[in-house]
């Protein structure tokens, strides 16, 4: 299974990853809708928050709408989802997203677009 791995010490906060993510997920430019989130911590340091595909959300979903696809990536079946957001509250890394213009929770699908956009190698695809 491939996940988006991070080296926050290399992040320069350009947010190219967020732009790439919203383009893939929603064909949008609003980075508030990105599944990967960069947060400035001060002193030119940045936090990178993105799903590590641990799958704890699968067990918490009352509608069995969250599953692992054949590549091991944790996915949400929008037809089954009842929008309770238990997954968002119970994500150990707080990487399940909500945005008021998007119906239902959303998350990183490990497509790799963000890693390709990153100019410094702060995020990269890793086989786990």
């Amino acid at each position, binding site marked *: 299974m491939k996940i988006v791995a991070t080296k926050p010490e290399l992040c320069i906060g350009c947010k190219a990853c967020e732009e790439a993510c919203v383009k893939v997920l929603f064909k949008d430019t609003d980075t508030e809708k990105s599944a990967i989130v960069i947060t400035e911590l001060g002193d030119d340091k940045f936090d990178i928050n993105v799903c590590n595909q641990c799958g704890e959300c699968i*067990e*918490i*979903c*009352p*509608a*069995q709408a969250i599953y692992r696809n054949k590549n091991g990536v944790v996915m949400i079946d929008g037809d*089954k989802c*009842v*929008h*309770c*957001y*238990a997954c*968002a*509250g*119970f994500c150990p890394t*707080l990487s399940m997203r*909500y945005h*008021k213009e998007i119906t*239902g929770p959303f998350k990183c699908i490990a497509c790799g677009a963000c890693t390709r956009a990153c100019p410094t190698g702060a995020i990269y695809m890793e086989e786990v």
Partner: protein
Amino acid sequence: MECKNSKDINLEELKKQRVRLHESSFEPKEIYRGYADRSLYINLTNNEVKVKEISSDMKEKFTGGRGYGMKYLWDAVNPNTRWDSPENEIIIAQGPIGGITQYPGSGKSYVVTVSPLTGLPVDSNVGGFFGPLCKFCGFDALEIQGKAENDVVIFIDGDNNKVIIEEAPGECTNSHILAKTLTAMYADSEEDKMNVSVVSAGLGAEHTRFGILNFSHYDLRRKECKLKQAGRGGIGTVFRNKKIKAIVVKRSGIKGDLNNPHDLDTIIKLGIKLHREIYENDTKQCWMRVHGTTQLVDAMNAHDLLPVNNFQFGEHPEAPKIGKNSFEKIFDRSNVDGCWYGCTLQCAHGITGLEIKTGPYKGQKIFTDGSEYETLAGCGSNCGVFDPYQVSETNFYCDTYGIDTISFGTTVGFVMECYNRGIIDKEVTQGLDLDFGNWEAQMELMHQMARGEGFGMIVGQGIHRLKKLFVDKYGADKEFLHDIGMEVKGLEFSEYISKESLAQQAGYGTANKGPQHDENWLIFMDMVRNQIPTFEDKAEALFYYPLFRTWFSIMGLCKLPWNDIMPSDNHLTDEPAKVPEHVENYIALYTAVTGNDFSEEEMLRQSEKVYNLQKVFCLKMGKGLREYDYIPYRAMGPVTVEEYESRSERYDKHLKELVKIDPDGMTVEEKIKELRKYREAQYQTLLDVVYKRRGWTKNAIPTLERLKDLGIDYPDVVDVVKRFL
């Protein structure tokens, strides 16, 4: 109709036996800001089915849920209506917030009827999917009146907008089989079973006065129907008397926006915030997700509050055997043990493969939802039973037979004490050796209730009627039975020792439906933390909390996520008992759903209209005056020498410090008498202050001014009150 095993059931055979009595269509209706603004009325005497519009006046005054239930019932019955009169109704209603999927505890239904135990309007809350699914069929309330000739199943089909009533002679009446049977019958696929919910009772509900309703929801992971209970007051007894075998609702396509709320964004943010609070704090606070409410057995035992042997004592060395550590091992916890989508608090877990030792399902390994605290305390410690598997079997049979575990446990505890003291003997019990701790005898009573025979059927009439029988027929001491019979207004006590909490005593005594803790639970505030020391403090709590808690019942909400999980900094707030941040959440939720501005003051006022109507309703039915708020002395203090001696240090201290009497040289009987005089006087004084705070007369009658101020001074309400003023 009893059947042995759900595996033996042939759905096609059952369908062939059905006789259709009614089929009609209704117009679909979307919910707008939490309301459908209509209800579904069904009369089983003539199979009349109609959709009723809900007036703006009713919506403004009674809000929803229990408020709608009380108003419909008020309009339907007269002072001579009894529980089995055809005009008595069963109303199942949601509230405007009910059905949202984001905020934990938002799937409650509230059920109202005239109780076979009390003769009064009773309200009982219940989880399970029925309420929300019924609401999303386009109905804020379901109102059932009349009586069928033969057993019927009512089907509300929200996918095809139809109501169908059919005679259903073949299906098993007991709930664990019936819910599974009907869920399979009405679902199109395994996944579709989540869109079906069944309301049912059981054979025990037919022969006792404390029948319950089970509300089902399908657990996709366990492939089992979980059952939640509208337990108090005998609603299941009314249900079976109306010859309803089950009510089934089906509604597919559940999503988080079906309430069409004013501000979904706020609802989702509040929901995620509370999910996170539960994620972070559950194992630092109540451990609900691990132990369910079983941890209360240990907590109550530690504080001398766990009823033991008919409320004589408050702790027992064996109590931990039916507490959290035992059930942590016995439960097969799932991460989705909520009773509606999005409830991550998960107050109840299940047991898979419980091997049944008695009765018609002996030898089978079954799934059961629970056990929960009230059952463990009532059917367990209060009857001297401390085996977790035995109490779990009692719980299973109570549920499937449709029997209230609280009334059952409290009543059997009373009967066991009567047997123990020689007030009744084996001739009366028809051979049953009803010593405390005799679980087999307890189970035989229950199976007799289901079969409608023997001493079990007599016990199933409840403590109020047993007291009269034991006095009239067997020469028992009337006053002593009144002291130890744990009932008020005809309803059995729920499972807390209130001897050392004056506020809780009045909470039990003044509760409109009878002594159930959902109106007031003040023991910790009063006794453990001493936060409400004066009469005025206690009266303020007895004004605020019943209204605050009533609010859940008019919204379609569960109380537990209010204070069984708390923000980490709650202890730093001015009034931690109120959980101020959660109160703010509820105020914001109400506005986000309905679009109406709201405040804590308006919240209490909404409740006060419903609460006072229910109070006047009690007057209308003949049991609303002060005298009906008196409680048995065992709820106030030690009745017997053994009780006094078990805590003699405490009681001697009270005599010295509070009563200003030196107990040295007094006999125990004299000490009991003096303590009793003091405590009974305290109780009466508190009633005076509470009634005043509530805007009632000294005789517990809401004043005309209060009713006018609340806007519920309808002519028929005023007429009732005027008769008593």
